[in-house]
């Protein structure tokens, strides 16, 4: 499935990037560009909607790390509903400790 990354402004405090398809070295730059766009406006939290993301290679993880460092310590990074293979990658590489992984958007504090 083709990869897409879509940036939405949910509210003044929250931006969201919806990812779908396969995130690998060839598609990571698209994601990275959206992260940079998002980081350009002040916000309290960045939400990554991974419901429809099927696969994440090392390159994808690198962008997640980049996102975390780009948005700064005062902005929380939420990862919503990652599929099992993606969650596995996040967990064994320890990235789960740096972000908030939540089952749905309803679990993100307002």
């Amino acid at each position, binding site marked *: 499935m083709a990869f897409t990354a879509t940036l939405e402004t949910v509210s003044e405090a929250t931006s969201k990037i919806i990812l779908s398809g396969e995130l690998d*070295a060839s598609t990571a730059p698209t994601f990275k560009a959206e992260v940079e766009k998002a980081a350009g406006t002040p916000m309290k939290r960045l939400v990554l909607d991974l419901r429809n993301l099927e696969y994440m*290679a*090392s390159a994808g993880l*690198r962008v997640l790390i*980049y996102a975390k460092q780009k948005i700064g310590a005062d902005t929380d990074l939420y990862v919503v509903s990652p599929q099992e293979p993606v969650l*596995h990658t996040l967990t*064994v590489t*320890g*990235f789960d*400790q740096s972000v908030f992984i939540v089952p749905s958007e309803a679990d993100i504090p307002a």
Partner: protein
Amino acid sequence: MDRIDIHPTHTYGDFKLRRGKPLPFGATLEPGGVNFSIFSSHAKSCSLVLFKRHELEPFAEIPFPDSFRIGNVFCMVVFDLDYENIEYGYRMDGPFSFQEGHWFDTSKILMDPYAKVIGGRDVWGVTPDWSNPYQHRARLSFDDFDWEDDRPLEIPPEDQIIYEMHVRSFTQHPSAGVKHPGTFAAIRDKIPYLKELGVTSIELMPVYEFDEFENSRPNPHTGETLYNYWGYSTVGFFAPKAGYAATGKFGMQVDELKALIKDLHKNGIEVILDVVFNHTAEGNEQGPTISYRGIDNRTYYMLTPEGYYFNFSGCGNTLNCNNPIVRNMVLDCLRYWAAEYHIDGFRFDLASILGRDPWGAPLANPPLLETLAFDPILAKCKLIAEAWDAGGLYQVGSFPAFGRWAEWNGKYRDGIRKFLKGEPGRVGDMAQRLQGSPDLYAWAGRAPATSINFITAHDGFTLADLVSYNDKHNEANGENNNDGGNDNDSWNCGAEGWTDDPGINALRSRQMKNAIAMLLVSQGVPMILMGDEVGRSQNGNNNTYCHDNELNWFNWELVNTNAGLFRFVKSCVAFRRIHPVFRNRWHFRNTDYVGSGYADITWHGTKAWNADWSNDCRTIAFLLCGKHAKEGTMPDNYIYVAMNMHWDAHWFEIPGLPPGLNWHVFANTGAPSPADCWEPGSEPALDNQSGILLGDRSVVILVGK
């Protein structure tokens, strides 16, 4: 304005190039490209060979233009590479002359000695495609791990309690109940166990990329594959073993290992790496050409005048560590692990080799050891030497320390084992070992923590086997029981191997507790071998280097079946951690220097204040004055330890305490579990304050408070 120093100046086919930077060596990401830098003292020319990941044939080969060589270093920036998906190697041309030590061969593709990620053995035990001309494949790495505020823990050396373990063995057994058995990720799942045990530091047997298929062969009896399982044979010094990572198949082993280290640090546990700089996986003259041999054979290896490999390692070749170039590589490597992976310390396998000159002679002032000792990046790292080598150099007590190096104390191991089995004439030696071996170290101004105290380690018997076997039983290694050491100082307690004799089993259980008690009341740094806390056995095999099976794997059922032993070990560890009097920074002075009325340490026997140093004596006792704990800087209780390794029970008269204090029993290995030890802090008072009966072969630890 954009930088103009990051644009290509040359082309080769479709590739855009620029003159590279000679430092750092290896492959480094630059804006828009990758800087490749490699040195060879004798190569005439070099090309960069590029592969798509996993492919047998390269997609490109780019010769380094002559103008890109600086001194002996070939360096080049290649732009617009798909850096996530490439693998790279080198092809070098130069002289081929065995006697002169030159092995250049343009048919070989060579791995970068500075490769930070190595593919080719991505998943443990998957048989490699032997037709692949490039077996161990260098990849690029990224230094973007999210460490947050983590850094090495810098636990004071004397406060360490080390746990020596093998990454795969720890969780590969089905009983481990982890999602990814045998991996870095699985160790993270077991952090609660390590915390429960109470160790401060784990020492990982080699995690640098190695080839488990090196010298792999079928077991002549069972047909099962025997591997290079332990991994004491390095393929690449800068890369973690991919097969130890659940994510190795995705090439994410770097992140997984860093995540483990970060999590351990968060839980107060240090990580020490067992590093093998004495030889490489290229073996002897018949071994494979992986990297070093084809790049700069004469530089990397110690060679005889005829061009053969010196074999001080017992493994076919010897890394030429005091050649200035190799010395720098070792330094670069350790700095990289300390800075990039936040490693807390290093244990150097066969470290005496690192003190030999390029012709094999021991050096008085080995520059490599000195360099490491004074390096600013390694300044807070623990440096631990296995202070001997396979060429007969034995330096326990005399390893060139430069005020920094600790030693695996082989004399501690031997002395404790002999005393434990009841040999006569051991009490004098025992007194030295219990005090942190001042006979070996105090004269040179080396602290008690110089002495890494261990009774068992991966080499040799486990603790359970030490008390169950008189002789090694290494038949499963397929070498007719000729491999492995013969000087085990072990005693089977009355039957060789497994027995249902309750008397023998009770004695074995007691002997294990005796050993653990001795280890944890000794000054210096105790090291526990993985599984000894629950009586792990290797069926009498004292050299299980080749077994990927239950001989090595930690069977987690033992935590339940040997719960009594586990409880005893945990209690002794906890007791050591709350009593600083066991963790002095400097050696005892045998005098009262704080005005407590007691010397820091005093020696006793069955008669208080009257130690018996005679040849037939098998008992010893000592009193530690709590007012002298950590040189009088920390408050502590009085501690009395009595050891009876005689086959009869003995009444020990106990030295008196200052008024108002009473003796309490922390441990008595002569009592059946659970009365063998008490939760530290809840010790019951001793009925008779003037003496205690020690059963045959037992240890008592009292606390005066």
